[in-house]
């Protein structure tokens, strides 16, 4: 009996310990998922397949014919099938195999479905995302596509559907969940065609959603007309299209004659009141995760593309280059793939968004195309006098809001019903602002009208580009492109080149706007008065373009679209790049001949700073004028005098120049900008203009001192601050150790923000305005040098050689596969940082031509089976 009791006692103790351990590894701890689920054998990390199988044969009943996929040594799939529907099924499968988590998160962000997997913490983000109506209009677009009787639309829908089936086939049969799912403790839902259409709206948001109308009005309020025009001028612009004359700087920067702009005392008060309301609005919107990036001032999310025709190439055939600049993430936004139907001439290599079955940029056997962002002004903001929760004033009458209802699924609780109020223009955004802050203001309702709030046909364009055989086909396809508006660069095997800023741009009715208003959608409109209604769009044939120009090349780098002879307003003045990259690319190509692929690489990787070339001589002159230079000043003088303006990470001159310029800029403007309470600093090109043309400009005077400073005083002051700061930061006066790469770094975050899955920081060449850019950040804060942690730049590099398409090159700053233990996780990123490219194996137009040596893995989809 005693023995039995002892056994029971022991059993109880052991069972309790066992139970405790099992529970400890089974239940989640706070934000940590159950440890056993991803750490213990049987699940999680032990199941994850780093790489895809070397050979896989799958039977799929829905396919018409067999499909073969070869992945090359970079993991890029080359997909061979006899129908495009089958090919995109396979594309969906391989994209899901490589990028499932990324695809899943992108659609959740766009559709407001984060709360479903994260819980109530993500509700505010979801509500705001839904309020932007991306999903609503994606749904409308999809329904339009489904109901369309246009045979091309029907084909497009069939392909999107087949592509979705490919993704879902993978989800149904997948053998493991990527690590991120284990951490966040959820599983992927099936893909739908709506998810694909949402990607278009997602990209439109990334590239065209803007709060600059508010900034413009606040600037106008702070600076007044004259000062605004001086400080926000756009000097040194070289228009993208070459057939509309030169760009005449500020006098026509907004296609308006400013002479009528008058501001009475009463109007000044109105502007100030509006400015205050908008400041409150912006401050609160900035707190919503993800919105800050749309509000922060930075060099326009830009890109480079250019084409050179046969008269300037060594092969006498065109060359096309494109590198689109976006925020970097791991995995990167682009997914490379090569799609081939050997029975037809469908053979296309391109950069896809993981989630879309058509290439965004790329080439087929006939034509190639690339993109840069236009900065077209396609979002307008309206303010209204609200009446109550259900009505607002519109053209003298109470008008009821239109209500859309959405259900937001929330993890571990009941779904939330969320309503979006709409005015005649678009969704009301002031519901996200604490209304107490706006109480007492008559104009307490703010809504927006955005180009993406439409049924749109970008899929026709993407499909059309893939199938274009000549410039007419390409233009016909481009005609359907709505948003996000892009500078489309084009070349073909027939020898044509072209550039076409493309997208739908609204024309506003500005007949009744107040005399102080700049019109053209540059400032918020009085919605209650019916100001600034969209009355049409700039017709495609009236958008600026250039084809086969006499100069034999075309360049876009987010600069001004067209010269002074062009008649329509297209770009928001605050959304035009300063133009340094465009100046450099134009200069190199205009002065060169016999360009080849190697030259294209050299331009894409170029880190010569036009800005440094224009500013540094003034610094050198000032240092030279110091009568008793100390050793440090002399060393810096010697170094800068010999510098070639290359922003090389291993050199010290870029460090000194960059920091000096940042301080020079700040010391020039911060006194006045602070006093005027301007929400923004001027463009750096304006400082360049002042430095070159007006050394006694009032802007150089420091209003906080009794003396009157000139340009050279401020240059010297900035120089001394810079070298003192660098000496402290590097803890040495040995300037050879002040390497640019020590403070100019690049960090590539993982899409979850988990630092363990990120890359860097690593020291890099370049700055935000070199052709090869890094989105550098400030290196000077509170009179101390700090490290810039840039996280953006070229999101892909592509060079297309129309003499031999097989010599075309690519690279992305991540890898094809989003699995963090895969060799293709960051393999291309490492090549990218070394300035390397990979070939595209485009010449393999049939399975037989795809050489054994190129194959890393194979998937064969056999038509038939279950």
């Amino acid at each position, binding site marked *: 009996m005693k023995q039995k009791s002892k056994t029971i006692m022991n059993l109880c103790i052991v069972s309790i310990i*066992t139970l405790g351990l099992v529970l400890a590894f089974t239940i989640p701890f706070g934000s940590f998922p159950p440890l056993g689920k991803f*750490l213990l054998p049987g699940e999680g990390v032990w199941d994850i397949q780093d790489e895809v199988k070397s050979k896989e044969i799958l039977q799929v009943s829905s396919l018409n014919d067999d499909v073969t996929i070869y992945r090359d040594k970079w993991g890029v799939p080359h997909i061979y099938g006899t129908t495009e529907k089958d090919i995109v099924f396979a594309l969906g499968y391989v994209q899901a195999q490589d990028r499932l988590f990324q695809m899943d998160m992108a659609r959740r962000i766009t559709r407001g479905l984060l709360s479903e997997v994260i819980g109530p913490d993500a509700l505010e983000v979801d509500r705001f995302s839904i309020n932007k109506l991306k999903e609503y209009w994606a749904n409308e677009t999809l329904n339009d596509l489904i109901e369309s009787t246009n045979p091309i639309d029907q084909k497009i829908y069939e392909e999107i559907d087949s592509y979705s089936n490919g993704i879902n086939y993978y989800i149904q049969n997948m053998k493991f969940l990527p690590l991120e799912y284990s*951490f966040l403790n959820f599983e992927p839902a099936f893909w739908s065609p709506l998810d694909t259409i949402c990607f278009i709206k997602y990209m439109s948001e990334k590239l065209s959603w803007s709060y600059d109308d508010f900034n413009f009005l606040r600037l106008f309020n702070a600076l007044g007309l004259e000062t605004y025009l001086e400080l926000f001028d756009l000097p040194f612009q070289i228009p993208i299209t070459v057939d509309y004359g030169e760009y005449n700087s500020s006098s026509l920067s907004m296609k308006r004659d400013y002479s009528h702009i008058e501001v009475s005392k009463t109007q000044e008060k109105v502007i100030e009141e509006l400015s205050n309301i908008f400041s409150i609005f912006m401050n609160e919107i900035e707190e919503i995760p993800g919105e800050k990036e749309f509000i922060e001032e930075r060099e326009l999310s830009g890109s480079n593309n250019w084409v050179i025709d046969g008269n300037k190439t060594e092969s006498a055939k065109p060359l096309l280059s494109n590198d689109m600049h976006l925020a970097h993430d791991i995995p990167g936004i682009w997914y490379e793939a090569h799609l081939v139907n050997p029975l037809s001439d469908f053979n296309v290599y391109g950069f896809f968004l993981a989630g879309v079955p058509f290439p965004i940029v790329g080439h087929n056997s006939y034509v190639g195309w690339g993109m840069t962002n236009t900065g077209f002004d396609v979002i307008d903001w309206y303010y209204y006098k609200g009446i109550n929760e259900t009505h607002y004033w519109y053209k003298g009458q109470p008008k009821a809001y239109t209500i859309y209802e959405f259900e937001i699924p929330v993890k571990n609780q009941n779904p939330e019903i969320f309503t979006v109020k709409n005015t005649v223009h678009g969704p009301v955004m002031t519901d996200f602002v604490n209304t107490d802050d706006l109480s007492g203001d008559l104009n307490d309702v703010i809504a927006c009208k955005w180009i993406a709030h439409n049924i749109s046909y970008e899929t026709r364009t993407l499909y059309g580009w893939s199938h274009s055989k000549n410039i007419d086909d390409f233009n016909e396809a481009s005609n359907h492109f709505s948003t996000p508006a892009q500078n489309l660069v084009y070349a073909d095997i027939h020898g044509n080149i072209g550039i076409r800023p493309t997208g739908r741009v609204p024309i506003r009715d500005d007949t009744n706007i107040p005399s102080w208003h700049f019109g053209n959608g540059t400032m918020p409109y009085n919605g209650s008065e019916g100001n600034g209604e969209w009355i049409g769009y700039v017709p495609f044939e009236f958008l600026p373009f250039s084809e086969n120009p006499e100069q034999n090349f075309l360049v876009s780098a987010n600069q001004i679209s067209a010269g002074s002879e062009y008649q329509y307003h297209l770009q928001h003045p605050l959304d035009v790049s300063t133009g340094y990259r465009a100046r450099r690319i134009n200069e190199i190509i205009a002065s060169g001949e016999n360009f080849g692929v190697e030259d294209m690489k050299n331009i894409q990787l170029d880190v010569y700073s036009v800005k440094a070339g224009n500013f540094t001589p003034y610094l050198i002159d000032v240092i030279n004028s110091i009568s008793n230079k100390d050793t440090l000043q002399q060393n810096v003088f010697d170094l800068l005098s010999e510098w070639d303006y290359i922003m090389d990470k291993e050199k010290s001159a870029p460090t000194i120049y960059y920091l000096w310029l940042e301080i020079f800029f700040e010391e020039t403007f911060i006194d006045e900008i602070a006093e005027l309470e301007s929400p923004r600093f001027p463009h750096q090109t304006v400082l360049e203009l002042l430095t070159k043309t007006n050394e006694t400009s009032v802007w150089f005077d420091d209003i906080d001192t009794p003396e009157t400073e000139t340009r050279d005083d401020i240059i010297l002051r900035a120089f001394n601050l810079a070298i003192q700061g660098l000496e402290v930061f590097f803890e040495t006066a040995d300037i050879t150790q002040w390497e640019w790469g020590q403070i100019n770094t690049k960090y590539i975050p993982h899409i979850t923000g988990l630092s363990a899955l990120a890359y860097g920081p690593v020291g890099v060449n370049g700055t935000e305005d070199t052709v090869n850019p890094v989105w550098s950040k400030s290196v000077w804060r509170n009179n101390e040098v700090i490290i810039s942690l840039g996280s953006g730049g070229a999101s892909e590099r592509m060079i297309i050689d129309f003499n031999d398409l097989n010599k075309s090159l690519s690279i992305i700053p991540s890898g094809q596969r989003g699995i963090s233990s895969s060799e293709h996780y960051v393999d291309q990123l490492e090549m990218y940082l070394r300035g390397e490219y990979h070939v595209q194996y485009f010449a393999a137009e049939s399975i037989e031509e795809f050489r054994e040596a190129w194959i890393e893995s194979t998937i064969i989809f056999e038509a038939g089976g279950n």
Partner: protein
Amino acid sequence: MTVEESFSEKIFTFVKNYSNFIGVISSFILALLFVYTTIWQLSIVAGFIGGLFYKRMKHGAIAGLVGVGTAWLIFVVIDVLSTNVNSLLDQIGSIILGVSGLGWIFILIVILLGFIFGVLSGSIGSAVRMLLKKQD
């Protein structure tokens, strides 16, 4: 004596003679099979079944320790050698502990947990057997 009785007796005798090994082997085989399911908790069952072959908790614990622990050890070693799982564990270490390069600690912890689960579940198996036997 029927043929069936004779066979049963032989099995019984075999089990009786080799119970020391059968418990270990069965928990080992089961644990090895169960790591290919998605339910890691089944390792407890493997140890428990191994423990049932022993009349003393100490022996059951050893059987579970050797059976489950060795199965997990082999599984982990093969996986570490043939895949890139150590880099994944490094990343997990970095996420949880904030320090990189500690993936090996997780590998050791997993192996250790295999032995611990084996000891505990083997003990429970033999204790249950002892209780059932005494009731008989």
